[in-house]
């Protein structure tokens, strides 16, 4: 088991290091257009080939990876934290209103929230602000799904015999939370986080249709993967699958990182 985790950590660290350190060793800037080399296959000059505008796919992939992973992790963490807060509040008199808010939040067309956000932002908003706000709003909008799962788990665990036993022994609520509830909720929170990171990476691509997210010449992992919808290019140029492979490696490595106490018989 430890070998698996070591391998997963190595792969993850390797991929992220290459992404974040790539400006030091990748010769081509991600935004530079080599127009005489548009749509070329991999070569010694362009290791992953060039895109339709002659930009180096490898440097764009590295840029996209570091941007998307960093921001998606932030958004996922925000969603999980808000979900946990909602779960904690669900134990109070706010239980029913929170349940209603969760249901409504899950049913809302968040697309229009993003359209309104785009309408409020000046057109010359800096890329950093635009992309940061996009992921922040995604993080806030995504609280309801994990919150629902956490609330059900919290309610279940609080009604369990061992928590009742702890309460009967005079343990404070805070201590019950930290000693008894959090160890169980933590693993579920981690599972939600792991699922949210790639979901947000992919969802960001859809926001490009609304004028948010990453703008040219920058790119994101979601945008690169969304181009795969035009399947014609996969058959003739399979290297376009590289962004998908990178994301799959990252998500798989994170999955394999989770701890496991012992082999369960």
């Amino acid at each position, binding site marked *: *088991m430890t070998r*698996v985790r070591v391998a997963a950590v190595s792969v993850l660290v390797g991929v992220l290091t290459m992404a974040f350190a790539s400006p030091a060793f990748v010769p081509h800037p991600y935004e530079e257009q080599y127009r005489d080399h548009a749509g070329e296959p991999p070569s010694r000059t362009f290791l992953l080939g060039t895109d339709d505008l002659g930009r180096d796919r490898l440097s764009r992939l590295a840029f996209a990876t570091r941007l998307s992973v960093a921001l998606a992790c932030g958004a996922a963490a925000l969603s999980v934290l808000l979900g946990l807060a909602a779960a904690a509040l669900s134990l109070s008199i706010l239980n*029913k209103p929170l*349940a*209603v808010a*969760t*249901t*409504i939040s*899950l*049913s*809302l*067309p968040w*697309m*229009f929230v993003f*359209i*309104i956000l*785009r*309408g409020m932002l000046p057109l010359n908003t800096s890329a950093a602000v635009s992309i940061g706000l996009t992921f922040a709003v995604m993080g806030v909008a995504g609280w309801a*799904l994990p919150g*629902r*799962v956490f*609330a*059900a*788990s919290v*309610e*279940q665990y609080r*009604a369990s*015999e*061992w928590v*009742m036993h702890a309460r009967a022994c005079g343990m404070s609520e805070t201590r019950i939370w930290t000693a008894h509830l959090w160890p*169980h909720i933590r*693993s*579920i929170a*981690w*599972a*939600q986080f*792991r*699922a949210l990171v*790639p979901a947000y990476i*992919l969802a960001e*691509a*859809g926001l490009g249709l609304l004028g948010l997210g990453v703008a040219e010449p920058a790119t994101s992992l*979601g945008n690169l*993967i*969304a181009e*795969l*919808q035009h*399947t014609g290019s996969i058959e003739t140029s399979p290297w376009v699958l590289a962004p*998908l492979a990178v*994301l*799959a490696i990252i*998500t*798989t*490595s994170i*999955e*394999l990182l*989770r701890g496991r*106490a012992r*082999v*369960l018989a």
Partner: protein
Amino acid sequence: MITGRPPARRGFAWRLAGAAIRLALIVVVGVLICAALVRYSPGFESEEADIDARLSRETALAVHERSKTGENFPAFALDYFRRAVHGDLGVSRTFNSPVTDLLRDRISATGMLMVAGITLAWAAALMLAWVAVFQPVMFFRSGAEVLAGISLAIPAPVIAIAFFLSGAPVSAALALAILPRVFGTIRELLEDVWRSPALVFARARGLSRTAVVIRYVALPIAPQLAALIGVSLVLAFGSAIPVEALCDVAGIGQLAWRAALGRDLPLLCGVAMAITFLVALVHTSTELFHAPTSQAERSR
């Protein structure tokens, strides 16, 4: 003095009434918020006629007049709910058809797509979670996690188009969107419960594996699984929208996408009503049927 009815049955009737009221309130508030978001978002009052160079200003205004819906939002909201009570959900601008007819004609397509996708996702998630938790061979355990990890990375629209073009069922795209969330949570729940002291004690006492699985695993995690079903429904519908839009499935997801692009207020309200009702129904049912168990447990 002995009362007529057992306390539990009277409590359930009250809870049912409360749940029904909550359901109606959620639907009304949900539709109102959705309508407000659409009404006050940029582009609502715009028509393609506004940039059609062939049209005079008067004709463009006449086009607006014809498609005017919801300009006065409070009046629209009141009128909408008044008519909705009688089953009239308005007429779609995009499709020029009554919204009720559109929803009725398409609900089965989306329903079948979602049922197929959720069934496949849960079957795969249960199998993978079982292997990941109980399989002693590391290769299979890690293999299950690798599969789950890969499924996280593949966007549903890409799979949907690839499947559609190759003739495979597009519900697999939906399943792929739901699988990672369901798998991760089920695995955590299984592991957590398998380590609980009561279960360890039961196993040590020689209780059969079947009894252990049913009584000590399935039942305790049933509420979380019910919540997860609700989550699956939401995820399934969220993924159904791009899948239907891209793959030519005449379902509610396709309606929702076209309505959103066209700012079709009556249609969006109708779709929001359907989604809110479905999600609220699942959540309310979960709370309704779980509550007695909690109370019974708390009273022991």
